[in-house]
Protein backbone atom coordinates (compact mmCIF):
# COMPACT_ATOMS: atom_id res chain seq x y z
CA UNK A 1 0.00 0.00 0.00
CA UNK A 2 1.51 3.37 -0.96
CA UNK A 3 1.72 6.29 1.41
CA UNK A 4 -1.14 8.27 -0.10
CA UNK A 5 -3.57 5.35 0.01
CA UNK A 6 -2.51 4.65 3.58
CA UNK A 7 -3.13 8.29 4.59
CA UNK A 8 -6.48 8.23 2.84
CA UNK A 9 -7.47 5.06 4.72
CA UNK A 10 -6.43 6.61 8.04
CA UNK A 11 -8.55 9.67 7.35
CA UNK A 12 -11.53 7.49 6.46
CA UNK A 13 -11.20 5.68 9.79
CA UNK A 14 -10.75 8.95 11.69
CA UNK A 15 -13.84 10.46 10.11
CA UNK A 16 -15.79 7.35 11.00
CA UNK A 17 -14.64 7.58 14.63
CA UNK A 18 -15.49 11.28 14.72
CA UNK A 19 -18.93 10.47 13.37
CA UNK A 20 -19.55 8.28 16.40
CA UNK A 21 -18.25 4.86 15.35
CA UNK A 22 -16.01 4.23 18.36
CA UNK A 23 -15.20 0.66 17.28
CA UNK A 24 -13.44 1.94 14.16
CA UNK A 25 -10.66 3.20 16.41
CA UNK A 26 -9.65 -0.43 16.97
CA UNK A 27 -8.44 -0.51 13.35
CA UNK A 28 -6.04 2.32 14.10
CA UNK A 29 -4.83 0.52 17.23
CA UNK A 30 -4.24 -2.69 15.28
CA UNK A 31 -2.43 -0.85 12.53
CA UNK A 32 -0.19 1.31 14.68
CA UNK A 33 0.31 -0.55 17.97
CA UNK A 34 3.65 -2.04 16.94
CA UNK A 35 4.81 1.34 15.69
CA UNK A 36 3.88 2.98 19.01
CA UNK A 37 5.48 0.13 21.00
CA UNK A 38 8.73 0.54 19.09
CA UNK A 39 8.82 4.29 19.80
CA UNK A 40 7.98 3.90 23.48
CA UNK A 41 10.43 1.03 23.97
CA UNK A 42 13.27 3.28 22.85
CA UNK A 43 12.68 5.69 25.71
CA UNK A 44 11.17 3.80 28.65
CA UNK A 45 11.81 0.46 30.40
CA UNK A 46 10.12 -2.62 28.92
CA UNK A 47 7.88 -3.07 31.96
CA UNK A 48 6.23 0.31 31.37
CA UNK A 49 5.68 0.05 27.61
CA UNK A 50 2.14 -1.37 27.77
CA UNK A 51 0.89 1.21 30.24
CA UNK A 52 2.37 4.17 28.39
CA UNK A 53 1.15 2.91 25.02
CA UNK A 54 -2.30 2.53 26.56
CA UNK A 55 -2.18 6.19 27.67
CA UNK A 56 -0.93 7.25 24.24
CA UNK A 57 -3.86 5.66 22.42
CA UNK A 58 -6.32 7.04 24.97
CA UNK A 59 -5.05 10.57 24.59
CA UNK A 60 -4.96 10.13 20.81
CA UNK A 61 -8.61 9.16 20.92
CA UNK A 62 -9.49 12.13 23.10
CA UNK A 63 -7.60 14.58 20.89
CA UNK A 64 -8.74 13.08 17.61
CA UNK A 65 -11.05 16.01 16.97
CA UNK A 66 -8.00 18.30 17.06
CA UNK A 67 -6.20 16.29 14.37
CA UNK A 68 -5.75 18.40 11.27
CA UNK A 69 -6.93 16.35 8.33
CA UNK A 70 -4.23 17.94 6.13
CA UNK A 71 -1.48 16.32 8.21
CA UNK A 72 -0.18 12.78 8.42
CA UNK A 73 -1.77 10.67 11.16
CA UNK A 74 1.31 8.46 11.64
CA UNK A 75 3.54 11.51 12.31
CA UNK A 76 0.95 13.01 14.62
CA UNK A 77 0.74 9.75 16.58
CA UNK A 78 4.55 9.55 16.79
CA UNK A 79 4.65 13.06 18.22
CA UNK A 80 2.10 12.14 20.91
CA UNK A 81 4.07 8.95 21.71
CA UNK A 82 7.39 10.78 22.10
CA UNK A 83 5.85 13.51 24.25
CA UNK A 84 4.19 10.94 26.50
CA UNK A 85 7.49 9.12 26.91
CA UNK A 86 9.11 12.46 27.74
CA UNK A 87 6.42 13.13 30.38
CA UNK A 88 7.14 9.71 31.87
CA UNK A 89 10.87 10.43 32.05
CA UNK A 90 10.24 13.79 33.71
CA UNK A 91 7.99 12.22 36.36
CA UNK A 92 10.48 9.40 36.94
CA UNK A 93 13.39 11.84 37.22
CA UNK A 94 11.57 13.82 39.93
CA UNK A 95 10.93 10.62 41.92
CA UNK A 96 14.35 9.04 41.56
CA UNK A 97 16.94 9.22 44.28
CA UNK A 98 20.48 10.07 43.42
CA UNK A 99 21.91 6.65 44.09
CA UNK A 100 25.12 5.50 42.56
CA UNK A 101 24.25 2.55 40.37
CA UNK A 102 27.05 0.08 39.90
CA UNK A 103 27.48 -2.14 36.90
CA UNK A 104 27.51 -5.90 37.39
CA UNK A 105 30.19 -8.39 36.35
CA UNK A 106 28.53 -9.22 33.03
CA UNK A 107 28.28 -5.58 32.08
CA UNK A 108 31.88 -4.97 33.11
CA UNK A 109 32.98 -7.85 30.90
CA UNK A 110 31.03 -6.34 28.03
CA UNK A 111 32.77 -2.99 28.53
CA UNK A 112 36.18 -4.66 28.52
CA UNK A 113 35.35 -6.56 25.36
CA UNK A 114 34.29 -3.33 23.60
CA UNK A 115 37.49 -1.58 24.65
CA UNK A 116 39.52 -4.54 23.35
CA UNK A 117 37.91 -4.33 19.90
CA UNK A 118 40.26 -3.41 17.08
CA UNK A 119 37.87 -1.13 15.22
CA UNK A 120 34.79 1.05 15.72
CA UNK A 121 32.82 -1.29 13.43
CA UNK A 122 33.58 -4.24 15.70
CA UNK A 123 32.54 -2.15 18.70
CA UNK A 124 29.30 -1.36 16.92
CA UNK A 125 28.59 -5.09 16.59
CA UNK A 126 28.93 -5.45 20.37
CA UNK A 127 25.98 -3.05 20.69
CA UNK A 128 23.65 -5.85 19.69
CA UNK A 129 24.09 -7.58 23.04
CA UNK A 130 21.62 -7.26 25.92
CA UNK A 131 24.33 -5.85 28.21
CA UNK A 132 24.71 -2.89 25.87
CA UNK A 133 21.05 -1.98 26.27
CA UNK A 134 21.34 -2.32 30.07
CA UNK A 135 24.38 -0.05 30.23
CA UNK A 136 22.73 2.43 27.87
CA UNK A 137 19.71 2.65 30.19
CA UNK A 138 21.98 3.04 33.17
CA UNK A 139 23.95 5.84 31.54
CA UNK A 140 20.90 7.64 30.16
CA UNK A 141 19.23 7.55 33.59
CA UNK A 142 21.98 9.85 34.83
CA UNK A 143 20.97 12.57 32.37
CA UNK A 144 18.17 15.09 32.85
CA UNK A 145 14.93 14.11 31.05
CA UNK A 146 15.31 16.91 28.49
CA UNK A 147 18.93 15.99 27.77
CA UNK A 148 18.04 12.32 27.55
CA UNK A 149 15.14 12.86 25.18
CA UNK A 150 17.16 15.13 22.89
CA UNK A 151 20.07 12.71 22.87
CA UNK A 152 17.81 9.77 22.11
CA UNK A 153 16.07 11.54 19.24
CA UNK A 154 19.01 13.41 17.80
CA UNK A 155 21.95 11.11 18.46
CA UNK A 156 20.48 7.63 18.68
CA UNK A 157 17.50 7.84 16.34
CA UNK A 158 19.41 10.30 14.16
CA UNK A 159 16.50 12.69 13.69
CA UNK A 160 17.41 16.14 12.42
CA UNK A 161 17.70 19.09 14.83
CA UNK A 162 14.64 20.62 13.17
CA UNK A 163 12.51 17.50 13.63
CA UNK A 164 13.67 16.98 17.22
CA UNK A 165 12.84 20.59 18.04
CA UNK A 166 9.40 20.23 16.48
CA UNK A 167 8.57 17.03 18.35
CA UNK A 168 9.67 18.40 21.72
CA UNK A 169 8.29 21.88 21.15
CA UNK A 170 11.69 23.53 21.61
CA UNK A 171 13.73 25.97 19.57
CA UNK A 172 16.42 24.61 17.25
CA UNK A 173 19.14 26.52 19.12
CA UNK A 174 17.97 25.02 22.39
CA UNK A 175 18.13 21.51 20.91
CA UNK A 176 21.61 22.12 19.46
CA UNK A 177 23.02 23.43 22.76
CA UNK A 178 21.37 20.75 24.91
CA UNK A 179 22.43 18.00 22.50
CA UNK A 180 26.05 19.16 22.62
CA UNK A 181 26.05 19.38 26.43
CA UNK A 182 24.33 16.01 26.76
CA UNK A 183 26.95 14.35 24.50
CA UNK A 184 29.74 15.80 26.64
CA UNK A 185 27.99 14.63 29.80
CA UNK A 186 27.45 11.18 28.29
CA UNK A 187 31.13 10.86 27.40
CA UNK A 188 32.08 11.89 30.94
CA UNK A 189 29.76 9.26 32.42
CA UNK A 190 31.13 6.59 30.07
CA UNK A 191 34.66 7.56 31.09
CA UNK A 192 33.79 6.93 34.73
CA UNK A 193 32.19 3.50 34.19
Amino acid sequence: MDRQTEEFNDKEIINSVLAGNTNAFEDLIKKYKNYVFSIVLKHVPKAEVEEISHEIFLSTYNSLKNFRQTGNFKNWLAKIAVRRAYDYLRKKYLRQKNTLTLIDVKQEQWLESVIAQQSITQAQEAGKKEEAREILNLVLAKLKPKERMILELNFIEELSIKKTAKILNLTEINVKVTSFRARKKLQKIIGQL
Partner: protein
Amino acid sequence: MKTPDQIKKIETALKKAGQEEKIFTPKGDWQQNLMREIRKTGSLKKLKQEKPGLENLAWRLGLSTFACSFFFCLLYLFNNGYLLENEIQNMLLTDTTGTVIFNLFGI
Protein backbone atom coordinates in the same frame (compact mmCIF):
# COMPACT_ATOMS: atom_id res chain seq x y z
CA MET B 1 39.46 6.85 33.62
CA LYS B 2 39.15 5.76 30.01
CA THR B 3 40.97 7.19 27.01
CA PRO B 4 39.00 9.21 24.37
CA ASP B 5 39.40 6.30 21.95
CA GLN B 6 37.91 3.82 24.44
CA ILE B 7 35.06 6.24 25.20
CA LYS B 8 34.36 6.58 21.49
CA LYS B 9 34.18 2.78 21.08
CA ILE B 10 31.77 2.40 24.01
CA GLU B 11 29.69 5.33 22.78
CA THR B 12 29.39 3.74 19.33
CA ALA B 13 28.35 0.40 20.81
CA LEU B 14 25.76 2.08 23.04
CA LYS B 15 24.41 4.06 20.10
CA LYS B 16 23.95 0.79 18.22
CA ALA B 17 22.18 -0.68 21.25
CA GLY B 18 19.73 2.23 21.19
CA GLN B 19 19.05 1.73 17.50
CA GLU B 20 18.47 -2.00 17.79
CA GLU B 21 14.95 -2.81 16.72
CA LYS B 22 13.09 -4.59 19.50
CA ILE B 23 9.97 -6.64 19.18
CA PHE B 24 7.42 -6.04 21.85
CA THR B 25 4.38 -8.23 22.34
CA PRO B 26 1.72 -7.02 24.73
CA LYS B 27 0.20 -9.39 27.24
CA GLY B 28 -3.08 -11.13 26.33
CA ASP B 29 -5.93 -8.68 26.32
CA TRP B 30 -4.10 -5.35 26.15
CA GLN B 31 -6.05 -4.24 23.07
CA GLN B 32 -9.40 -5.35 24.53
CA ASN B 33 -8.74 -3.43 27.76
CA LEU B 34 -7.83 -0.34 25.81
CA MET B 35 -10.95 -0.56 23.65
CA ARG B 36 -13.08 -1.11 26.76
CA GLU B 37 -11.73 2.12 28.24
CA ILE B 38 -12.22 3.99 24.98
CA ARG B 39 -15.84 2.84 24.80
CA LYS B 40 -16.25 4.02 28.39
CA THR B 41 -15.00 7.47 27.35
CA GLY B 42 -17.91 7.63 24.96
CA SER B 43 -18.45 8.38 21.31
CA LEU B 44 -16.56 11.38 19.93
CA LYS B 45 -19.73 12.61 18.27
CA LYS B 46 -21.38 12.96 21.67
CA LEU B 47 -18.29 14.49 23.24
CA LYS B 48 -18.17 17.00 20.40
CA GLN B 49 -21.72 18.15 21.08
CA GLU B 50 -21.18 18.70 24.77
CA LYS B 51 -19.16 21.69 25.84
CA PRO B 52 -17.00 20.47 28.71
CA GLY B 53 -14.78 23.53 28.37
CA LEU B 54 -17.57 25.85 29.40
CA GLU B 55 -18.51 23.64 32.32
CA ASN B 56 -14.90 23.66 33.47
CA LEU B 57 -14.73 27.41 33.26
CA ALA B 58 -17.85 27.79 35.38
CA TRP B 59 -16.34 25.49 38.00
CA ARG B 60 -13.09 27.38 38.05
CA LEU B 61 -14.82 30.76 38.31
CA GLY B 62 -17.05 29.52 41.13
CA LEU B 63 -14.16 28.00 43.01
CA SER B 64 -11.92 31.05 42.75
CA THR B 65 -14.80 33.38 43.81
CA PHE B 66 -15.39 31.18 46.81
CA ALA B 67 -11.68 31.11 47.69
CA CYS B 68 -11.42 34.90 47.42
CA SER B 69 -14.52 35.52 49.57
CA PHE B 70 -13.25 33.05 52.14
CA PHE B 71 -9.86 34.77 52.28
CA PHE B 72 -11.34 38.26 52.69
CA CYS B 73 -13.77 36.97 55.28
CA LEU B 74 -10.89 35.54 57.29
CA LEU B 75 -8.98 38.78 56.89
CA TYR B 76 -11.94 40.75 58.18
CA LEU B 77 -12.33 38.44 61.16
CA PHE B 78 -8.63 38.67 61.98
CA ASN B 79 -8.63 42.42 61.68
CA ASN B 80 -11.60 42.83 63.93
CA GLY B 81 -10.30 40.39 66.47
CA TYR B 82 -12.99 37.72 66.28
CA LEU B 83 -10.57 34.89 65.83
CA LEU B 84 -7.80 35.57 68.34
CA GLU B 85 -7.16 35.80 72.04
CA ASN B 86 -7.19 39.28 73.61
CA GLU B 87 -3.45 39.77 73.90
CA ILE B 88 -2.59 38.80 70.37
CA GLN B 89 -5.63 40.70 69.22
CA ASN B 90 -4.41 43.93 70.78
CA MET B 91 -0.95 43.46 69.36
CA LEU B 92 -2.27 42.78 65.89
CA LEU B 93 -4.84 45.53 65.91
CA THR B 94 -2.15 48.13 66.40
CA ASP B 95 -0.63 47.02 63.10
CA THR B 96 -1.82 47.56 59.56
CA THR B 97 -3.50 44.74 57.65
CA GLY B 98 -0.44 44.16 55.51
CA THR B 99 1.86 43.73 58.48
CA VAL B 100 -0.66 41.42 60.15
CA ILE B 101 -0.55 39.10 57.17
CA PHE B 102 3.24 39.24 57.08
CA ASN B 103 3.41 38.52 60.81
CA LEU B 104 1.03 35.62 60.49
CA PHE B 105 3.15 33.97 57.87
CA GLY B 106 6.37 34.82 59.65
CA ILE B 107 7.74 36.95 56.81
